[in-house]
């Protein structure tokens, strides 16, 4: 079982990234749960979601001590990094945050998601940069499953599909080129 906490600001695609992860897990025949928590604002408020992907029935849907934290901005990184379980993984959006967690029992990956997303063609694809990095680091779901989700999401919008698929690939590459701190 892997518990993933995705956190950031409303509008960064945190919830849709979480949903795609859960859908990918379901496609691969796993048990999944997706529990979002967000304020009343559409943009700008805090947004986070807990995604669990497991081979067995999922009891608690909460991720208070996640195995993996995805932090899309500085406040989310500093709020949740202390809660990551020892030995866990943190992927932080280096474009909007530092990457100093103040502990050495977790692996922190610094991925400049916003910059890479702009390179891919649209800053809104930053969430898929991070998903690319996540898949590269953890192999929790297959790349193909995420790409399937993207295809479903952007059906009839080939230009957006291309940008987001590129963002996903660049996210994977960013891990290879030494994202780990």
């Amino acid at each position: 079982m892997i518990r993933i906490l995705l956190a950031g600001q409303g509008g960064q695609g945190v919830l849709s990234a979480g949903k795609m992860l859960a859908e990918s897990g379901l496609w691969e025949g796993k048990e999944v749960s997706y529990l979002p928590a967000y304020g009343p604002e559409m943009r700008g408020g805090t947004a986070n979601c807990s995604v669990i992907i497991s081979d067995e029935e999922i009891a608690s849907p909460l991720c208070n001590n996640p195995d993996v934290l995805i932090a899309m901005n500085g406040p989310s990184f500093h709020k949740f990094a202390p809660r990551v379980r020892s030995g866990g993984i943190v992927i932080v959006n280096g474009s909007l945050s530092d990457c100093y967690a103040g502990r050495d029992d977790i692996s922190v990956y610094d991925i400049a998601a916003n910059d890479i997303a702009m390179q891919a063609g649209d800053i809104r694809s930053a969430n898929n940069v991070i998903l690319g990095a996540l898949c590269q680091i953890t192999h929790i779901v297959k790349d193909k499953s995420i790409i399937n989700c993207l295809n479903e999401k952007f059906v009839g919008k080939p230009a957006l599909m291309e940008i987001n698929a590129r963002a996903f690939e660049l996210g994977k590459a960013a891990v290879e080129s030494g994202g780990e701190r």
Partner: protein
Amino acid sequence: MAKILLHGTEAICEGAIRNGCRAFFGYPITPQNEVPEYMSVNMPKVGGVFVQAESEVAAINMVYGAAGAGVRAMTSSSSPGISLKQEGISYISCARIPCVIVNVMRAGPGLGGILPAQGDYFQATKGGGHGDYHLIVLAPCSAQEACDLTYLAFDLSDKYRVPAMILADGMIGQIMEPVELPPMRPLSDIPKKDWATDGGYGKDRRVLNSLIIKAEELEPHVNALQKTYDEIAANEQRCEEYMIKDAEIVITAYGTVARICKSAAKTLRKEGIKAGVIRPVTLFPFPSKAYERAAEKAEAFLTVELSLGQMVEDVRLAVNGKKPVSFYGRTGGNVMDEEEIVRAAKSALARAREGK
């Protein structure tokens, strides 16, 4: 049928539609807006009616009318909105009209907050509105159950002519999980209602009424209602028992909270403490029999709620003083984690062993 990823709210809607619900009346309130949203799209597709009413009071009275005409009807709201509906719910109960009311609970009292809570247990299970009445109350713990229990609610409500409530915490409203949907039930398969005011001119005159002015008529009516509630209590108690057989400490909770309790019970077992979980699925009727059985063997009980202690009263009545019953609760929209429950369970067991 393959499983699909659904929101708890969507699962509620599918459970309703697939068991013949063809009328939905609602008024927006967070965290259940996805119910009317989904219904507004999907009701017309099955030839049903969707109305966004001008208020909660209007919505429940539309249910009163539609269900009185024999249609399977539903309304949905969240805590403050459910309070507004209480007058209508009491009337519907007195007139003995089956329908389903969904309450996706948020934190109260007052307008409160939009985060998950379970503070409406008393309101749901003890009547809620005025007068001597009860609802059948079902508490889902997953998106799958949100679908299955809503499906079941329509059948139970029709069978006993008692309105049914789906009492879900805010997490059920937001969680997305794989759901296997039941097949669409043809309307012809749903039993005919020989009491409905459906325009059967020339037949027996049918009246649905909640005004019974004569004392000598109202008392037998209320007594008949009570007889039905007793029958429901005898036949319809449902609960999930998890690792109960050898449990020293029985943790008990309903809805999503019960799932956190299950994780806590697993952790406790790893530490050598035999813990089990009783999760009531029906809150009315309360599954007392399960607690009576568990009280024979267990040393202590711990009730966990997103409130300051409501279901714990029913647990204490069922355990009936045989074993100590402790309580742990959070409010305001905060959800306890597994570790808090583990700690509370250990201390409940320790207190029981010290005889406090």
